[in-house]
């Protein structure tokens, strides 16, 4: 049963791709199609970060371990959408013209932090298998705490690219901060009650 449900969730997670395909089909990408695609996948990356970070707190709150079964899949979708977002920027926007890209990464702080977040995702995606969990043992957990740093980098990436105080980046930042704060509480409880 859970297997089918997981497959269903997997296809649901492809929804952002469906939107873009439909936009392309109906020629509905607007005045700046490249920017729209880039922003679309950037925002979905943040949404998937929030979803991934929600699983542990949901397990605590509902007392159901069911949620944890989706964490890995959601986390891999973070990497998937972050990669499409990056490829849109590098390939579609800048046509693999490396000089301005390298210049941007080094000089523009929002691109630097966004790119750093993507680099940090690579080891997490690479060590997501059951086998790697066994090999890395307790180091695996420490390594995967990097997702907290990635989440903060992601929200800063969005804030720094905005021209003035915009609502959306602030909303994502608040959600991420709340999700991280929930963990501090969880950890303390762990210490207190063993």
């Amino acid at each position, binding site marked *: 049963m859970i297997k089918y449900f997981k497959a269903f969730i997997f296809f649901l997670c492809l929804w952002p791709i469906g939107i873009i395909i439909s936009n392309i089909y109906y020629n509905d990408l607007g*005045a700046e199609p490249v920017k729209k695609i880039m922003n679309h996948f950037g925002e979905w990356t943040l949404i998937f970060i929030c979803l991934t970070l929600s699983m542990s707190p949901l397990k605590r709150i509902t007392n159901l371990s069911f949620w944890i079964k989706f964490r890995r899949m959601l986390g891999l979708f973070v990497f998937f959408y972050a990669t499409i977002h990056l490829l849109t920027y590098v390939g579609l926007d800048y046509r693999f013209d490396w000089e301005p890209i390298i210049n941007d990464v080094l000089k*523009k702080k*929002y691109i630097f932090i966004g790119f750093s977040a993507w680099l940090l995702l690579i080891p997490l995606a690479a060590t997501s298998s059951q086998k790697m969990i066994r090999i890395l043992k307790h180091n695996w957990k420490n390594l995967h705490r990097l997702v907290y740093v990635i989440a903060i980098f992601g929200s800063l990436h969005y804030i720094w690219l905005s021209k*003035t105080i915009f609502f959306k980046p602030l909303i994502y930042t608040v959600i991420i901060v709340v999700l991280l704060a929930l963990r501090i509480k969880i950890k303390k409880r762990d210490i207190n009650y063993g």
Partner: protein
Amino acid sequence: MKKISFSEITPEKIYLKRRDFIKKLGLSTSSFLMIGQNFLNNANASTNKLEPTEYRYISTYNNYYEFGTRKSDPVEKSQNFKTEPWNIKIDGEVENKINISALEINNMFESEERIYRLRCVEGWSMVIPWMGFSLSKLLEKAKPNNKAKFVEFISVYDPVQMPGQKYPILQWPYKEGLRIDEAMHPLTTLVTGLYGKKLPNQNGAPLRLIVPWKYGFKSAKAIVNIKLVEKMPTSSWMRSSPREYGFYSNVNPNVDHPRWSQASERVIGSGILSERIPTQMFNGYGDEVANLYSGMDLKKYF
């Protein structure tokens, strides 16, 4: 004094068809426009390549934070904005203070078509066939005195009609400024329309500025007050982030915005597979305006 009546206005479809027809004849758009028109429409070298952006993009993809920060907010939220009656004051360091309605300005100065590239600081550009006239014509009527070194443009403040003004996104009302010689330059245009039509609300009706060699935000919309002043005014964007937005804000591919590169731009409406184009110094209007800045370090005075 010629006023454009509604019957004279070319519907956009026919307008575009005519352009197409002219192109088929082997003439460039600009060579046609050159006939009988003032040099300003085609003085710059880049005009030969200027193909106007489609009206649907010009009228739906706007930065006009008074109506909200999304590109679609201005067109969605400005349709009931009242532009009549509309009064404009020209005051400060002038001999003749002027208080005039937008309608009177429309009757007093003949608008002509001026096709300019608009380069946004965000890294995109459009080519827009504005209707308008040189701001200098209006300023001359006010007779600036010898203390008038700068011109400040103040946009309307009306939070009831402009939902974006309920939030401190920027300091309201929106303010912009030019040096007096920039303001008197013939390319500096007071805009009354576009594509041969009345200026749409989302594009800054009833009266806005266009300074083609500067980033778009320098061109204040829905102007109610033009003030001649002695000291350099502080614009809304300078106040918001002085490190990022300078007073001059000339289009300059060699001076990056602190957060993004200005070396190239995306052309609005050119489709998903088209490439960025290199940004030109002074947005391609260097032949006309570079002399205004001779001897100035444009990295320092950005």
